């Protein structure tokens, strides 16, 4: 096959493929955002709200039941500042969120059992 043809076809296909992806992203993003604005949709809007409105943790003066203790905060801050290779003059930890458990579920179960067995 002529090498010019390969080039033209190649670029054509690459552009087509990525244009199609753009189209899909634009459509589904719009749908999700429309859905998220309707008040009767809860499941995913909450997720999005969470991403948009995110307040700095420091504003929460009253610690809720499941929140993070100041001691833990100090440890995390130290660890983060170590990772960032600088002292903590540049930035402070403004928001800490628990993420889902990443430990294998059986380990957690085992750990809980162990604690329960010691109570």
């Amino acid at each position, binding site marked *: *096959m002529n*090498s*010019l043809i*390969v*080039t*033209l*076809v*190649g*670029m054509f*296909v*690459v*552009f*087509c*493929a*990525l*244009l*199609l*992806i*753009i189209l*899909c*992203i*634009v459509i*589904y*993003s719009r749908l*999700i*955002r429309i859905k*998220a604005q309707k008040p009767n949709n809860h499941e*995913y809007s909450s*997720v*999005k709200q969470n*991403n*948009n409105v995110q307040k700095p943790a420091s504003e929460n003066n009253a610690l809720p039941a499941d929140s993070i203790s100041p001691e833990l905060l100090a440890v995390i801050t130290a660890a983060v500042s170590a990772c960032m290779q600088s002292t903590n003059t540049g930035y402070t930890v403004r928001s800490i969120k628990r*993420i*889902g*458990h*990443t430990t*294998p579920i059986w380990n957690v179960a085992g750990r809980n059992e162990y604690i329960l067995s010691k109570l």
Partner: protein
Amino acid sequence: MWYDFTNAIKALAAESGFANITLLHLIMIVLALFFLYLAIAKKYEPLLLVPIAFGMLLANLPLGGLMHPELWDAQPLDYGAILHNGGLLDLLYLGVKLGIYPPLIFLGIGAMTDFGPLIANPKSLLLGAAAQFGIFGTYIGAMAFGAFTPQQAGSIAIIGGADGPTAIWLTSKLAPELLGPIALAAYSYMALVPVIQPPIMKALTTKKEREVIMKQLRPVSKLEKILFPIVVCVLVILIIPSSAPLVGMLMLGNLFRESGVVERLNDTAQNALINIVTIFLGLTVGSTASADKLSQPGFGIQALLIIGLGLVAFCIGTASGVLFGKLMYIFSGGKINPLIGSAGVSAVPMAARVSQKVGQEANPQNFLLMHAMGPNVAGVIGSAVAAGVLLSMLG
């Protein structure tokens, strides 16, 4: 007894590397040491270049028996012979030959990649497409020399994708005899992105264009991030089925990351698994660059051409990305900084950082990193698609 002793020593000496080393071996060993130097002292993509250069070193110490290139020249491959006579690196090379390692590396890359900036600004994908002209433009150039088959030309051109695993994957399918030099060129130039790109970027843009400050990206919801790998996987594989191993695994890795429900698998994909595969891939790809190759007529010239064409591919890719960025600058009424176009060549996240740096030179208030990450990760998808197209047309 003294006679027996000297005889035994002589026999061992005759089988030693010192007695069997040739000038070509020495040249290749020096080359391997040079790449080790680049990887360690200059930090050129060390994760791949250290294993590749060490594999090259091991393959060029005579009679080590770690790699037997002759086993891999058979048509069709004789897997029985490989199991019976293969050395350690022959056996590990099975993972390259069977096309297993590059997709697993893509699984890890997918798990490490945040497509958020791309979802926030889908137009970036166009820049990731435009930069692939580096691949196809170089294909014309490689064919023009008359020194390469179309399959070899396609493998050389893919260096312009600035994506190591994609280059290794395509080359192992189209032109495995060039795997060593192509992998070395690909990773070397990826490391040289901060040197190669800025002059081209500055030459093709005006100061006014480089100063453009782009507006902040919108936040992307978790659902959009979860849907992205699924949508891209389905669309791209439907369009170019031959890209399935790369795109499928890239998107599975990203789904591990974004779904948030398989943190264990996400962690392993981006750590233990990708690291193990990287060691095996690097070592064996490096070991294909043995002195026997260099002794084949014309291989030396081919290797030099690969080095030259690889550079050309990178330059064309960068230029076409920037030029398409200028087009978007015009059509958007000056809202898009053309500097983010050069990030479309992949080389994540180096190319995006180059955009950031050149942008900040022109305007210290300028902060392009996040905007350049969009074209940057789009470039990964773009070159995987390009590899699929080349495999479909030339394979």
